């Protein structure tokens, strides 16, 4: 079991209840959609996984380790096992595509040799090796998100977590990104995607977890987005 949540409740300072008594398990190799309207708690759930937030109540296990009790200095080592993708890409504008991806390896103090080997290989995987020397501003939105995918993948994470990865993209490009995610999943990386994209979810036929006002209302294998 890669991720286990037991009775997880998150109440933000100020009293806003973001998640209520969530119980769920995600195994290695799964592809999971988290759906629900804005404010349902999707982002909070994602943030709990990579420990940007800690649960108010309940326990979260990552690969058998209780991460709700993680010490501050242990958090970076959890995050090295998780690739994170955001709606707004979060690339560094003054760095080239290659440098943006290499940056992720520099940060975890990878060797120069590994960086030189891994970065082109990962860019190839997202079909962007030919744009290695371009800056993010010269790329389309879809291409930028693929750079972000490469950056999230380059350190071989156990899991890739994406919060609205297609939120800023047109439908065709969104499809493209989903296909890359599916491909990444088929090669063994667990994937969790929080999304609004109804059509994509419906046609991908993956496990769907639906949140409604902070509660888990549906957890379905090969599910659809719902009403």
């Amino acid at each position, binding site marked *: 079991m890669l991720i286990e949540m037991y009775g997880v409740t998150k109440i933000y300072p100020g009293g806003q209840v973001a998640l209520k008594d969530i119980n769920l398990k995600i195994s290695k190799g799964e592809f999971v959609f988290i759906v629900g309207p804005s404010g349902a708690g999707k982002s909070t759930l994602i943030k709990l996984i990579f420990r940007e937030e800690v649960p108010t109540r309940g326990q979260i296990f990552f690969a058998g380790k209780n991460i709700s009790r993680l010490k501050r200095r242990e958090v970076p*080592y*959890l*995050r090295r096992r998780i690739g*994170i993708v955001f709606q707004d890409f979060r690339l*560094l504008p003054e760095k080239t595509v290659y440098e943006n991806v290499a940056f992720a390896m520099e*940060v*975890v103090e990878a060797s120069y040799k590994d960086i030189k080997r891994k970065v082109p290989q990962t860019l190839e995987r997202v079909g962007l090796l030919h744009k290695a020397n371009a800056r993010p501003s010269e790329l389309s939105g879809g291409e930028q998100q693929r750079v972000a995918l490469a950056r999230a993948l380059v350190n071989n994470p156990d899991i890739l977590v994406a919060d609205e990865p297609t939120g800023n993209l047109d439908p065709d490009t969104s499809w493209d990104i989903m296909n890359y995610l599916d491909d990444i999943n088929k090669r063994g990386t667990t994937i969790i995607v929080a999304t609004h994209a109804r059509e994509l979810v419906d046609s991908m036929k993956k496990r769907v977890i639906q949140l409604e006002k902070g509660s888990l209302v549906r957890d379905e294998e090969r599910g659809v987005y719902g009403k």
Partner: protein
Amino acid sequence: MKLRTIRYFFKEAFVNLFRNGWMSLASIGAVASALIIFGSFLMISINFDYIAKNVESQVEITAYVEDSVDKLRLNQIELGIKSIDGVKEVVFVSKEKALEEFKKQVGEELLEGIENPLPNSFRIKVETPQEVAGVAERIQKIDGIEEVKYGKGVVEKLFKITYWMRLVGLAVMAIFAAISVFIISNTIRITVFSRRREISIMKYIGATDWFVRWPFLLEGMILGFSGSLIAIALLAAGYSYLYNMVKLNVPMIPLLRLEEFYDYSLGLLLMGTFLGAFGSGFSVRRFLRV
């Protein structure tokens, strides 16, 4: 830590320094001026201390012995003085020796044929100048001592002045240290703020706090270091000029030699660098909470 990582830290630090070139210059200037003012005060108070110590070490007690006291009693008195706590050295000055010294001062001819009017006396040095008054008082109580003299009043005043000098010096040091930290931390804050996006991305990727912190810490240290180098250069130039002027015009004032100033300059350098590190550490902390 890998060499490659250290190189990365320095590269980032210098990139930051040059990216905010004007701010960097401004803060180096600010650190330099703070340290110059601070250093000037340091040099003034060190020199004042030095002068004071010099005068202090010259303060000694003279105890005059009654003429009626015989040789045996003189020995007893000497032992008595020696047994007082805080007494470092006792020198007996006989009537004859006193006269000889006196003659040297005023001229032989003047005293020709006169009977020696000077009493036997002891010259006493004490361990610490602060004890002079107490020791003098106890000597006075010894039988056979006619009169005890020391720079009464002068010594006390001197101590009061050096005491306040030290206190004010410390206060001014503290104020300027705080100002330096403030200026540096503001400069670093601008760098950190302009790179907050990068910092948050680094944190999401799994960078440790120290990995994020080091470049900024180095940036602050380089700012503090450069500022203190400038301050030291200007202070050294200023001090050597003043030193030569004082030596030329009022040679009797004892001043700290230039070489000794360099010992303090190393301290200034360390302090500037430390202030830089401290100031930047202050700014980065807030942005690490991701």
